[in-house]
């Protein structure tokens, strides 16, 4: 993985000093609440319902075991013993005390981490495919490019006060596991007809109040120009994006109001003026960056069948919580953070420490964060999966549900977030209680349920096969349900099935939607495909049919 050099170290250390001084001035009354707000947001610090919330960047989801131990130590020392992994490969702490935040940032800096630009109207954490480098379906490992973009975006002097937040996702595989089509900019590594690798650039995707799927701005960008092209996109956005209405300030609204053609014309003409300037990426730089992401020292192994002859629980876990690796004899292993009785994405300090230890023992000391709010070990020898499973199972980290109905993506909701209308964690729990029969859940196959506590859509509900949105109706929590969304390469926005339902009725409504699927699916057809084939009507009719939901 990337290791900081003296410049990176200096910058994060100076950032801590800057924020320490800003916090001191605020606490001394020299900076008003409003002035301080603009500064703290750029360090990932929100003031939430209960306490400040600190969001720490995990660039493209990659962590060393030492970094994870530090995250655990911070959870124990400064928080209440846990952290929440988010849909953008960050971790959030819900209970830090403001005067201690500079100390937390200093502890992070010591292990080459930071909270720079994890909130505020600036370029946010660069996210990527959690299977980067190990998946057989990849053209090229996207992580060197993520790091190149991360450095360009960090403390960017021109783009730190944008109209609104700006999210970039990078993928190197045709299967989009980074939800890049619902990002402000999606960067796809592609090969042109001459066989050269370069980038397809998309812009204008996003969720929130106005969900839009990103559109292709440029089909093929030679690799040397990645940063200059991004700079051109950002410059057009910084100059032209709306600043009069927070809800219309994302780049997706600019792309839509100008039209794709005119937006492209403006970006390209800006880019023409800067493309051969200082942002040109030399091949030597790419090679140097790539050397940080060289494959680990894999052993020469044969494929094995570790599940053969084992008990049912291990076989189920192996089937759902591990996936294919491009190197023979290895397997990707997911750590499910979706236990029925725990908020999706939460991990305790002890769990994080155990995961760090298991990473050292079984996966070259590295851990990854998936945007689905699970963790994973990317490089596990198949023969070690049984031992690893036992260790995970003993810590409640082996719920065999990856990619199934109960692997729910979920924002922190009303319990922690000052924006939310509704408690999403509790609804996730109700769904887990209702669907506790694994045979049924497994029979449903690949199914992606996403839940947000408000319009800001942190839980990506628009692109869930089943999406759940918390809404406020006269002070009560209600839930609007959508179906047919997808965050993959076939991205689509879900359709609202009808009036929102009461909290207690959410599981029953989902059960009815699933009944339609089970009755009418073709063999091997996913829920998403059945829904796309049938349309929303039969699902809607069943969901609201008498007798009223219990």
């Amino acid at each position, binding site marked *: 993985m990337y290791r900081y050099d003296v410049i990176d170290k200096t910058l994060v250390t*100076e950032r801590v000093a800057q924020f320490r001084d800003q916090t001191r001035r605020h606490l001394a009354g020299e900076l008003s609440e409003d002035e301080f707000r603009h500064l703290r947001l750029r360090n990932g610090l929100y003031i939430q319902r209960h306490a400040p919330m600190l969001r720490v960047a995990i660039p493209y989801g990659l962590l060393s075991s030492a970094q994870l131990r530090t995250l655990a130590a911070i959870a124990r020392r400064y928080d209440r013993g846990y952290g929440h992994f988010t849909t953008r490969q960050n971790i959030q702490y819900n209970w830090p005390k403001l005067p201690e935040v500079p100390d937390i940032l200093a502890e992070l800096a010591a292990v080459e981490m930071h909270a720079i630009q994890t909130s505020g109207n600036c370029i946010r954490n660069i996210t990527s495919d959690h299977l980067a480098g190990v998946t057989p379906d990849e053209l090229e490992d996207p992580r060197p490019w993520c790091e190149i973009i991360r450095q360009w975006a960090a403390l960017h*002097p021109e783009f730190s*006060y944008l109209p609104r937040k700006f999210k970039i996702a990078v993928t190197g595989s045709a299967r989009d596991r980074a939800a890049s089509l619902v990002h402000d900019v999606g960067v796809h590594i592609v090969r042109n007809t001459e066989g050269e690798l370069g980038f397809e650039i998309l812009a204008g995707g996003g969720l929130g109040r106005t969900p839009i799927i990103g559109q292709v701005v440029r089909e093929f960008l030679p690799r040397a120009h990645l940063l200059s092209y991004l700079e051109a996109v950002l410059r057009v956005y910084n100059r032209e994006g709306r600043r009069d209405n927070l809800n219309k300030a994302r780049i997706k609204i600019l792309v839509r109001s100008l039209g794709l053609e005119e937006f492209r014309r403006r970006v390209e003409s800006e880019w023409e003026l800067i493309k051969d300037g200082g942002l040109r990426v030399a091949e030597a730089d790419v090679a*140097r960056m790539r050397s940080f992401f060289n494959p680990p020292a894999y052993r020469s192994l044969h494929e094995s069948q570790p599940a053969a002859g084992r008990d049912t629980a291990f076989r189920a876990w192996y089937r759902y919580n591990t996936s294919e690796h491009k190197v023979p004899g290895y397997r990707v292993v997911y750590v499910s953070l979706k236990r029925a009785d725990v908020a999706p994405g939460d991990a305790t300090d002890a769990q994080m420490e155990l995961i760090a230890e298991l990473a050292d023992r079984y996966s070259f000391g590295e851990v990854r964060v998936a945007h689905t709010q699970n963790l994973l070990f990317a490089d596990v020898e198949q023969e070690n999966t049984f031992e690893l499973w036992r260790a995970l199972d003993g810590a409640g980290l082996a719920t065999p549900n990856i990619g199934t109905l109960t692997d729910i993506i979920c924002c922190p909701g009303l319990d922690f977030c000052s924006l939310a209308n509704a408690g999403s964690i509790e609804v996730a729990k109700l769904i887990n209680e209702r669907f506790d029969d694994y045979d049924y859940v497994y029979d449903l196959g690949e199914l992606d349920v996403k839940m947000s506590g408000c319009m800001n859509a942190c839980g990506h509900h628009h692109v869930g096969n089943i999406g759940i949105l918390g809404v406020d109706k006269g002070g009560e929590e209600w839930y609007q349900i959508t179906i047919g969304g997808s965050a993959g390469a076939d991205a689509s926005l879900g359709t609202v099935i009808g009036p929102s339902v009461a909290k207690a009725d959410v599981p029953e409504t989902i059960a009815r939607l699933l009944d339609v699927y089970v009755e009418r699916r073709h063999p091997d057809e996913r829920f998403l495909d059945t829904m796309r084939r049938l349309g929303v009507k039969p699902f809607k009719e069943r969901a609201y049919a008498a007798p009223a939901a219990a």
Partner: protein
Amino acid sequence: MPRRLLRDGEVVADDWRYLSEVQGPDGGPLILTIDQWLSDRERWIADNGRLGVILAPAHKVELLARDLARFALIGAEFPGPSDGRGYTQGRLLRERWKFTGELRATGYVRRDQLFFLARCGFNSFELPDSEIESASTALATFSAGYQPSNDAGLAVKLRHR
């Protein structure tokens, strides 16, 4: 008491006046709004005085392209802590249009913005009195920057690591 500002790292008395601050052109250096400039351009050119002009965030720097050499000072107005259009104006003036005069940040300007403003080419800052003495240290908040910028001395290119 004349206005003080931070220019090239030093606290100095401002030798410029805004047109709104004087009874009429008195031969001294004057800062105009862009509307004052555009509505009376011929007269200002005929007067041949030392001129500056302030851009509002919505103004494109291209508006000044043909007249750039007539200005010894160009300013960008920052209406509040969140409007970042002035940063782009600064970079374009310095890097694309090669403006070499005084580039001034005015309006909501605080020490916490100075480092990025300076990297975008600004060299003078109208700060509140409460901050003006301590603000110059903010210019040294970071000892490097990742992006190539007009302050080439700070630019860190990947290959130079």
